Structure formats: C-alpha cells, structure tokens
C-alpha cells in the first residue's frame, strides 16, 4: 500500500482549476468566466454602435422632436392618413397570411408525405426563396403589366378585349406578397409535420378513422405549433414589407413602411420616428402575444431541412 501524500484541497486550487476548466461548462458556474464574454463582446459592441443605438436614437425623435413631449403619439388618433395607412397595412398582412396559410399547408403536407417527389418540391420552394425580393417583385411586374403574361394570355384566349389593369392595384400587392412569403409559411409547417410520430396516423387508421378524420383529428392539431410559427413569421414580415408594395402596389394604397420612407424623404423625422415606433411596437406586441405558444422557437430557425 503506497503512502498517499494527502494535501488539503484549497480554494486557490479550486479557482485555478475552474479558470482552466471553462471548456467543460459545468463548473463554469462558480468563479466568473470572462472568456465567453470576451468572445461575444466585439459583436455586441459593434451592433450597439452601428445598429441598436442608431435605431434607438432615431426612435427617440418621436418624443424629442421638436421638444420633449408625447404630442406625436397623441396626434395619432386624429391622424386620418395614419389610420388609413395603418389599417391598410394590417389588412394586407391578414390577407397575405391567410393566403399563404391556405396555399402553404397543402404544399407542406405534400413535401413531408412523398419520398419520390420531395427533392423536386423542395427545389421549387427554395428556388424562389433564395431569389431576392427585388427580383421576385420585378417578376410580378412582368407578369401583371399591361403587356405582361397574364394579359397577353387572356387576350390570346379571347377572354379579354382589352388588357386588364392588374399591376398597381392592391390585388397585385397581395398576390406578389403571397408568392414571396409562401416559403416562410411552408417550411415551419413542414418542420412540425415531420416531427409527428408516423405511428400515430397508423394507430388512428387501425382504430377506424378515415384519412380525412385522421388528418383533421390527429395531424392537424399536432401541426399547430408549426402553423402558429408560420402565421407569426409571415404576419410580422408582411407588416414591414416595403419593396413589393412600392413596386407593384397601387399609388393610393400605401403601407406603413412606405409612409415612413416618404416622411424621411421629407425630413419629418419626428413623425417618421413615431410611425416607426408604432410599426415596431405592433410587431413586438404580436410576437410577445404568441411567445407563450409551444413550438414558436422554431419559427426563427433557418432550417430548410
């Protein structure tokens, strides 16, 4: 039996070991670990300087321009232009969200169910998804213009005598936005569907449920987290859309983001900041309201797999 030289384990040893040990997270709780903070600090400082502080300072103009007061906000309920634009923005967002939901759910279902066609479907979803919003909006300009495909096709088929005015209407905005936001609805729903245990559907079938019943009572409810995530994502993105409504939308139906841009052009910073604050607050409020729902975390994960 060897004679052990037992040295009492002191706090100095503990501290030194803890500092070296910051690799295996568990003991990092004790003495404060500076390394992770040092790694994250450059980016945090960078974003504070060039993103967070600029945005906050600009938003402050809503209460500091021309003098410290809440007058800009107080004026909003009487601001007819703002009301109209805000309601229009909300309305468009709702329509677009519904549209993407109705069109997107079947596609998500198809993507998850077929093995043969899944790569093809995925490519057809990802290709437009990867294309820039500008190019996609332009594509719709080409399609919906006076000499665009839709009009030319309908004229050639004899269904029209004169070209329809599709471009520069609210409908154009809605169609284009649905097209652009559709992948953002499909992917979270597909994600959620993929996580449903396949034996559940089989169990339901074995218990006598028709395919429709199985879908309605088993699949649909279980896919709700994905649906919620998709709805949230699409709605919040639609609220802030600028490029598409500006390019294909009607001149009289502008969105809140377009109004903000206009006001900045006219250097009405106070008003622009107020509108921005309202837009941001609306988006945050909706996110906060839905935050408690299960599965929401997946909405902001860039998984296409």
């Amino acid at each position, binding site marked *: 039996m*060897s004679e052990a030289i037992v*040295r009492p384990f002191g706090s100095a040893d503990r501290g030194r070991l803890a500092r070296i040990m910051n690799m295996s997270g568990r*003991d990092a709780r004790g003495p404060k670990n500076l390394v992770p903070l040092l790694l994250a600090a450059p980016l945090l400082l960078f974003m504070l300087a060039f993103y967070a502080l600029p945005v906050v300072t600009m938003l402050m103009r809503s209460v500091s321009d021309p003098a410290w007061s809440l007058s800009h906000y107080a004026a909003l309920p009487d601001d007819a232009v703002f009301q109209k634009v805000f309601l229009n923005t909300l309305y468009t967002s709702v329509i677009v969200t519904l549209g993407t939901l109705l069109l997107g759910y079947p596609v998500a279902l198809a993507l998850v169910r077929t093995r043969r066609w899944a790569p093809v479907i995925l490519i057809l979803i990802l290709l437009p998804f990867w294309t820039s919003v500008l190019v996609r909006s332009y594509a719709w300009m080409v399609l919906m213009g006076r000499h665009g495909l839709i009009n030319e096709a309908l004229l050639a088929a004899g269904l029209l005598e004169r070209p329809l005015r599709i471009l520069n209407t609210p409908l154009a905005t809605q169609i284009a936005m649905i097209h652009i936001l559709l992948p953002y609805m499909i992917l979270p729903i597909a994600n959620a569907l993929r996580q449903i245990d396949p034996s559940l559907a089989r169990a339901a079938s074995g218990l006598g449920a028709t395919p429709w019943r199985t879908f309605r009572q088993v699949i649909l409810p279980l896919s709700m987290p994905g649906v919620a995530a998709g709805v949230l994502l699409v709605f919040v993105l639609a609220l802030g859309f600028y490029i598409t409504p500006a390019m294909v939308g009607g001149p009289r139906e502008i969105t809140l983001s377009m109004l903000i841009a206009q006001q900045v052009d006219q250097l009405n910073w106070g008003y622009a900041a107020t509108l921005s604050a309202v837009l941001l607050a609306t988006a945050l409020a909706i996110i906060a309201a839905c935050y408690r729902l299960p599965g929401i975390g997946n909405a902001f994960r860039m998984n296409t797999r």
Partner: protein
Amino acid sequence: MAGAGRGASVSLTDLEKSYDRVAAVAGVSLDIRSGEFLTLLGPSGSGKTTTLMMIAGFEMPTAGDIAIDAESVVAMPPYRRNIGMVFQNYALFPHLTVAENIGFPLKQRGVAKAERAKLVGEALELVHLPGYGERYPRQLSGGQQQRVALARAIVFKPRLLLMDEPLGALDKQLRENLQLEMRRLHADLGITFIYVTHDQEEALTMSDRIAVMNEGLVAQVGRPEDLYDRPSSRFVAGFIGESNFLPAIVRGIEDDVVVAECDGALLRALCPGRMSPSPLAAGEKVMLTTRPERLRFADGAWHSPSSSGAPQNRLSVTVTEAVFAGERCRYMLQAGDGTAMVLKEPSSAAIRRRAVGEQAEIAWSVADTILV
C-alpha cells in the same frame, strides 16, 4: 514517485461532489492498487460516473483529495493527468480517420510522424483492427468503434485507464466478446483499469475487485467472490446476483454465529461485518440472506456442493411456482410466515421435479447464510 509495476495507484480520500445542495458523491475513500482492474458498480445516480469524472479531472471535487501515484492531482487539469479514458458513446472525432484519432494523443505529446505511425499500427494490432487506419469512425460498427476508442486511450502508454460504461451501447453477444478482450488487454498491458458499470454480471466477470456504490457512498469493496458470498449490507446482497431475504429475530449468539428465529425455525448465520461495532441483542429484528443456488430440497437427489458435512439450516416451505429454464429449474417457495424464496437447482433427468403446491423441506449450509 511512481509505485512498482506498470500501473498507477489511485487514492481517493473523503471525496465529495455536490451540485447546489444535492450530493452526488458524499464521501468516498478508496485505495486502488497498481495494476488492478477495479470496477465501480452501482445503479444510476449512485455517484460512480461522477467519481470517475473527478479522477479524470472533468469534475472538481467540492471536498476531499485524489492522489495518483501518491501525488495529489486535484489541481491538475485533465490534459496533464496522462490518463487514458474511454467513453460510453466512444467520442471518436468524426472529422479524423481512425489513424488520426489514435494518433491524436501522440500528436499532443509532440511525437514525430514516423514514430506516430508505428505506434498507431501497434495499437491497431493490439485491438485486432489492422489496416483500418484510413477509415472514418462512421464507417465502423459499434464494436469496432469501441476498439478504436480503446486503442486511442492506450497508445500513449498511460498508467491508468478509465472506462465509463463503454459497452453499454452494444448488444449482448458483442458485449461479452469485448469483455473478454478487455480482460486480456488488462493482463497484457498490466496497467490499472478503473471501470464503471451498472451491470453486476459484467463487474463480476471482469474485475479484480469491485467497489459497490449507492447514493454517493461506497457500500462495500472486495473481490467478486467476497461480495457474492459475504455481502455486508442488504443493498449489496440485493444488487449483486439474486438473493433470498429472510426476516428473523435474534435469539442468541454461539461463538461467531448468530442464532435467529425465522418462521418458527432456528437458523444460524454468519455476520462478517457486524460483531464488533454493535453486538446484537436478543429480540432484535434482523435480515438473513442466502443465494438461491445454495438451497436444496432436503430429500432430493441434488446435493449442493457446500452442503456435505457442514452445519445446515432447515426450513419448511410450499412450492408456489416451478419454472424450467434450460440448464436450471427455478422454484418459487413460500415459508409458513409468507416469506417468498427462490431455489435454483440444475435440471437433470435424475432430479425429481417438484409440483406446485408440494410441501417440502429445504436445507442449506450455515456458511452460506449471511446476516445483513
């Protein structure tokens, strides 16, 4: 100051590890001899893995000391302890080939490329995987991956090898094969092995000594046969192998044997751990234990090897179940006071099978009866 032999000696002194207010390890003291194969055995939550992790250096003890080759290592980071380690899920680097995996520790120690290749080749031979160097871990089966993990852990010739349930993820047949290989490796290398498992059969098969752990403490340390024949507590008796438990009341003490009454019969039992610390008082309630295969039917043709000549205990029972299990017959018995027991005897045409409901008398050696 290294001990004699190729293996390191390890000393754990009053080792403790607490998380918040929960003690995972509540005071473990253990001396592991140079070159021995010691297993830390226990159910999940017993603190065995935590103890291993502290020896490796991945957990910091909240109290106590760890000495390897008589030198305290508690303040030493894991990468300086020169200990080999094998994990349950192998932890092979997926982005490196088998050869690069095995050569990794050599690279950290500055071994030259040519020498590295030679040592890696030798290690691969040792684990029976010659020529697998250029493959990637994901191309190997579970058993092969485990052998690569072993090779990687010993290639730099450590004096101590730690293993955390390395065979847990493998199927039974593979596990048994690898157990034998590890035994052989231990004999060849001569270094100290500390092995963690919850599988008592595995521990009994492979170890020189076993430390049974429960709730953060060492319940008993000893050779497999000592733990099997002389368990020191109810927990050890129940955890290792199968045991019959007989509640009894102390009636007296004869020499170093205790006499207790169970179901009207006077039984005698050895008390390996109890005599000196707290002498037993008459009327005290105790638990006696004996192994199913040590019991025999008193009038039967089968005589348990330990029964000839030695003093016997007897008890009257009723057979409640009879199961033929291949090489043995298993009988569930019930004593008069309702105590359930199990008896195992070899199955053979020469031995009469008992029927359910049959009354019988069983006998077994006093030497096989332990008070826990």
